[in-house]
């Protein structure tokens, strides 16, 4: 069970933290710097030993906690994550790329060589794996922080839990619950917008999208045990979404994590069957 190693982590001195980047946008690491009020406090109670985005100092493994941003998408990254795993007592993924593959995992359903030719005039120089995959597909991960991007409050909670030697208290229920609690009018019921809130994990900081009068697009990935089939039934029978719409909606920043992946694969098959029928 992820999280247990965090429990076990009790330290007399300062916690030695490190942040590592793989294929990503830097946004989750930036959320560390976006702690602003807590940043200098964090630097006081922990030792931020390796953080290339923020400092020039030489690294010195081993680290108590390694935060990993980004997915594995090149042969070099495959090697590097194994090395990092050996150097970190606890390994925590931060964000959708590291946890589910991220937006670049869209290549997993496509021909990467064709992608490469589309973007680069000399694709032979591109050393990219055929897939972009989450960290847990390569090494053991102790805890996964969701979100595209992560919520900085979750980071503080995680480090506090590690310092106190307790389990982090991070919710895994649906965004829908948070939205109701906040008293926002339901964008699906009131406006007929296809909202992923019922199947998406809470954490973005107060049902951001419904608060902005739009449908949740699932940036925190699936909640615990979502009912994908039921939501899909609603979207297709009552909100006019077709199989392609469903596929696109699920294959966004967390498309390559179950059960979003399985559901999107089902809609893709349906879309292809529909196309074949049309051709006939």
């Amino acid at each position, binding site marked *: 069970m992820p999280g247990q190693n965090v429990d076990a982590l009790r330290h007399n001195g300062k916690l030695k933290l490190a942040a590592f*980047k793989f294929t*990503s*946008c*830097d*946004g*989750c690491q*930036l959320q560390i*710097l*976006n702690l*602003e*009020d807590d*940043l*200098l406090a964090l630097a006081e109670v922990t030792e*931020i030993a390796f953080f*290339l*985005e*923020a*400092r*020039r*100092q030489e*690294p010195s*493994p081993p*680290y108590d906690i*390694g935060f990993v941003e980004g997915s594995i*998408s*090149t042969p070099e990254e495959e*090697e*590097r994550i194994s*090395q*990092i795993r050996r150097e*970190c007592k606890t390994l925590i993924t931060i964000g959708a790329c590291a946890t589910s593959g991220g*937006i*670049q995992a*869209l*290549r997993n359903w*496509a021909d*990467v060589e*064709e992608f*490469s030719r*589309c*973007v*680069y*005039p*000399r694709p032979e*120089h591109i*050393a*990219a794996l055929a897939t*972009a995959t989450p960290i847990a597909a390569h090494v053991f991960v102790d805890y996964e922080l969701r979100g*595209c*991007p992560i919520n900085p409050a979750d980071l503080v909670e995680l480090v506090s839990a590690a310092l106190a030697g307790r389990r982090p208290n991070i919710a895994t229920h649906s965004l829908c619950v948070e939205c109701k609690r906040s008293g926002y009018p339901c964008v699906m019921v009131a406006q007929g917008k296809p909202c992923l809130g019922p199947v998406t994990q809470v954490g973005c*900081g107060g049902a*951001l*999208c419904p*608060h*902005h009068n*739009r449908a949740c*697009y699932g940036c925190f990935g699936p909640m615990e045990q979502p009912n994908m089939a039921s939501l899909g039934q609603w979207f297709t029978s009552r909100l006019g979404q077709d199989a392609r*719409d469903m596929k696109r909606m699920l294959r*966004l*920043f967390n498309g390559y994590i179950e059960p979003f992946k399985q559901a999107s694969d089902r809609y893709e098959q349906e879309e292809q069957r529909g196309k074949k029928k049309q051709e006939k």
Partner: protein
Amino acid sequence: MSKKSNAGRKSKKSEGGAVGRRRTRTIHVEALARVEGEGALHLVTRDGRVDEVQLRIFEPPRFYEAFLRGRDFREVPDIVARICGICPVAYQMSACHALERAMGVFDEVDPAIRALRNLFYCGEWIESHVLHMFMLHLPDFFGCESVFSMAVDHGDWVRRSLRIKKTGNAIVAMLGGRAVHPVGACIGGFHRLPERREIAALLPELEFCRDDMADLLLALAGEVTFPELERDYEFVSLSADDEYPMNLGRIKSNKGLDVGQDEFGGAIEELQVPHSTALHAAIRGRGAYLVGPLARLNLNAEKLHPRAAELLPKLCKAVGRRLPWRNNYFSLLARGLEVVHSFALAVDLLANYSPPERAFVPVAPRAGLGRHGTEAPRGLCWHEYRTESDGTIALARIVPPTSQNQAMIEDDLGELALRIEGLSDEEATFQCEQLIRNYDPCISCSVHFLNLTRGQGDAGEVS
């Protein structure tokens, strides 16, 4: 040199020494610190001339232009935001404007929405500029390895800058829900308009930060010594008639470039240079050019907000140079001025805010072509999209600022290399790193557009 696969992957290597009468020096930094993304530096000088200079990009490609094909046009602002966690607003704004052109509604966007878009951008400029100035760049000027060690001697500055940065984030969050990958913007406007009480809550802090940033900037200008490296750059930025450039305007330079948004893609070319497989943007028939805060300032200083403009003479006096500034290290000051400008503009916009009649212009899908660039914190970020009749993206092309500056960074390094021959290897390496960081390169952004050089031409093999 064998590729070290230690977790840090940061190894520095400098080889110097006289071999007979030849002197070869290799400066190699395998993983540049305090830049956004992954990049490396490789520089070889021999007998007083530069043999090789490369800013290597080893950030993995993510293929945005490829997977955008087939997506719905309304999804694009949320998707392209993920190109860069530091400047998502820039990507959203460029995409929104370009797709509004494609859908034929560009001229229908309400002026009040345009004002809110500038406000959105103010937040991002503040957040990104202050992050770069104080957290990534300034430690170099004080000989510190990070903001954490800089906080020991300059704790007051660090704390004030964190408060200012936080306020920039708060502007983005007011319009977009959060600072990184905000959810508020859409094609045609915003999903939701801010309420008066949110604005009233933010205004006093904006006024405080505007004044405090002005003080900080003047104090900083008095303490920092800039390296001397003046060059005859071609500065490129948007230039609107009536405002300091953010979202709108023609694209102009100090050397005669003057093109509409539609024509920019044809005005530049992507060159492949012998020493690198990375594509370099250049103005057709002319060569490398510079985008970013220094370019914007030099071309548009008279359009600065009066609160920023009044600081300019003092800054010019502090550095002993009148505009145009040709020393790119002065970008630090240009960023500071733009932060003050952004706060002052934001205060004006909010103090006079009355909610627009509608949050967005209704947009219906159609087959179209749209091109538009806006001023990301690091410079012009230009997008091009072609859509099918149902609004599906058929083609996407994105020209981010760092890939445009890459050729100029290498030119600058070549120039610098000759001036630092007398320095120790360590000091010379540091100066090269500082030069690159001065550009605030955003490698995460640039890479989906660049070829990789990783694994080619090892540093040790200088013949």
